[in-house]
């Protein structure tokens, strides 16, 4: 008891004599006691986390639950299963065209992303560094293009896709997704290119390098983090896209995972919840894995896009 009092008495002195190096970035929050932090910080944070993650837990649990436990809440506690089964996942992978859909999604996302990044690198470099006549206006127009949502475009675009003879082919999606991706990644890459010192390019210009050589040999290697960010974000957007895929593709074998799950896996009134949840879970996995490796890039892409 006396020790505690002595400690308390000694504290103001310590604070006063503390060197500036002991300055904590949290301000005075270290004075808050643990019970106080429990109520004001950990409890609300915990509740929000549980709400954010519960649907995924439920998805994963449903996909390994045997059928009888899925629909009988009186005997079995629905929050857990004691005898998980891989029946639903097996059925999904071997009795449906799920692998084909997964492959389609992967192929379309990869092609559309590659095409968009190629186009955006050139466009962003031209806007930031070449500063041709009207570059600023083009930059503004690209920003505006980002604000045009697919929900407004899909009707005329479906007639355009039909006119171009692309209807019900993967090219319909590979060529239309870049309209969502290019504005975003151009914007992101413009920010990255601006941070690369112009002196490097001047030196190369004096040495007689062409603009193309400068772009490939100097700018791109320095912009790798930006390229990764743009890649991840584009890939995620492709995987997520729904309305174009729903409108432009009609054959089951060309569908992407999100569309196929909604249209082909749900048959009539019999919802196969186990397989549906397995499909949703497996469809999310590639993105979650990709994201796990590149979290920092992803977050910087998101915030970078907003700050620019």
């Amino acid at each position, binding site marked *: 008891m006396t020790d505690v009092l002595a400690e308390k008495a000694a504290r103001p002195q310590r604070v006063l004599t503390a060197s500036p190096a002991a300055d904590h970035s949290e301000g005075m929050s270290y004075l808050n006691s643990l019970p106080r932090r429990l109520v004001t910080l950990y409890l609300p944070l915990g509740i929000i986390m549980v709400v954010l993650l519960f649907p995924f837990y*439920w998805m994963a649990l449903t996909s390994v639950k045997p059928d009888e436990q899925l629909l009988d809440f009186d005997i079995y506690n629905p929050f857990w299963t004691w005898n998980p089964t891989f029946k639903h996942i097996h059925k999904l992978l071997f009795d449906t065209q799920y692998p084909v859909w997964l492959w389609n999604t992967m192929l379309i996302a990869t092609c559309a992303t590659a095409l968009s990044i190629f186009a955006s690198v050139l466009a962003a470099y031209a806007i930031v560094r070449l500063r041709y006549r009207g570059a600023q206006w083009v930059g503004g127009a690209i920003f505006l293009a980002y604000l045009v949502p697919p929900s407004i475009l899909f*009707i005329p675009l479906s007639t355009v896709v039909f006119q171009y003879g692309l209807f019900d082919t993967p090219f319909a999606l590979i060529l239309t997704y870049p309209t969502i991706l290019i504005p975003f990644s151009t914007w992101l890459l413009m920010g990255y290119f601006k941070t690369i010192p112009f002196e490097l390019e001047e030196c190369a210009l004096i040495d007689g390098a062409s603009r193309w050589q400068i772009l490939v040999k100097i700018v791109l290697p320095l912009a790798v983090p930006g390229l990764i960010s743009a890649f991840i974000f584009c890939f995620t957007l492709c995987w997520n896209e*729904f309305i174009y895929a729903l409108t432009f593709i009609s054959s089951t074998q060309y569908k992407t995972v999100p569309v196929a799950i909604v249209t082909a896996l749900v048959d009539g009134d019999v919802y196969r919840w186990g397989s549906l949840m397995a499909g949703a879970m497996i469809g999310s996995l590639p993105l979650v894995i990709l994201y796990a490796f590149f979290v920092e890039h992803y977050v910087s892409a998101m915030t970078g896009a907003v700050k620019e």
Partner: protein
Amino acid sequence: MTDVALKSRLDKRPIQEPTSWDRLKTNKNWLGLWFMLPAGAILILFLAYPLGLGVWLSFTDAKIGRAGEFVGLENYEWLREDSTFLLSVFNTLLYTTVASIIKFAVGLYLALLLNERLPFKAILRAVVLIPFIVPTVLSAIAFWWIYDAQFSIISWSLKQMGLITTNIDFLGDVWNARWSTIFANIWRGVPFVAITLLAGLQTVSPSLYEAATIDGATPWQRFRFITYPLLTPIIAVVMTFSVLFTFTDFQLIWVMTRGGPVNATHLMATLSYQRAIIGGSLGEGAAISTAMIPFLLAAIMVSWFGLQRRKWQQGGDND
């Protein structure tokens, strides 16, 4: 400089016209054109042209497989008396307003919590973003199952706690369906708002808070007079995006309710899909999509300029 010198020399000797290859190598404007070509071509062919075509279609009576005749404002006059369309406008406004406000409030709160001193901070931040990473349709299917009329886990839990006696019909009742879809939208949107605001919070210098604390500012005053003003530019951008994507949302509604029950959750986007693609009336569907543009512009203006103006008032620099 070099361009001007080169041009004047070429002007003096008109015989040696530069070949197009020379132009391509030296002239910035030509180079710019070549560099812009891939992006420009895609955006013009698949964005600008369809956008114009969409507005044109809205003035025609086009159907699937048949080019339309120009009918003037007939589609819009039709829509003005269409109760389903008016209901979808109401739904869209309700959905956007409620979801955006709550997303902002919860997102800001979560950002402030994550900005505190915490163990496993990096992991927590990564985990928070997962609802935003996972494709919307796939999480919407999970919500569909959570909201199931008979086997909803929420109904079961509430019954176990003795709070209700019969299952809640989440997606079968008009207002329940509206709140359920709004909740799913908030669930998906909060991570984006929270993480971007958190990035903004981290640029605020801690010394400002220390100075304010020494001056005796309460936590609320610190938030109101330091955090909020410094965060307004980023709030403007985040809320513009958030409103834009909520207003034009299609996926969540289409997967969970398809606009039902009795059109109670139809947004303008889902209604235009139903009329144009399923019903085949391209012109009418295009008119509904085109009718979204003024609302969209208004929403963007409010969140962008409304918040940016504060920045000017406080004498911040306009970067």
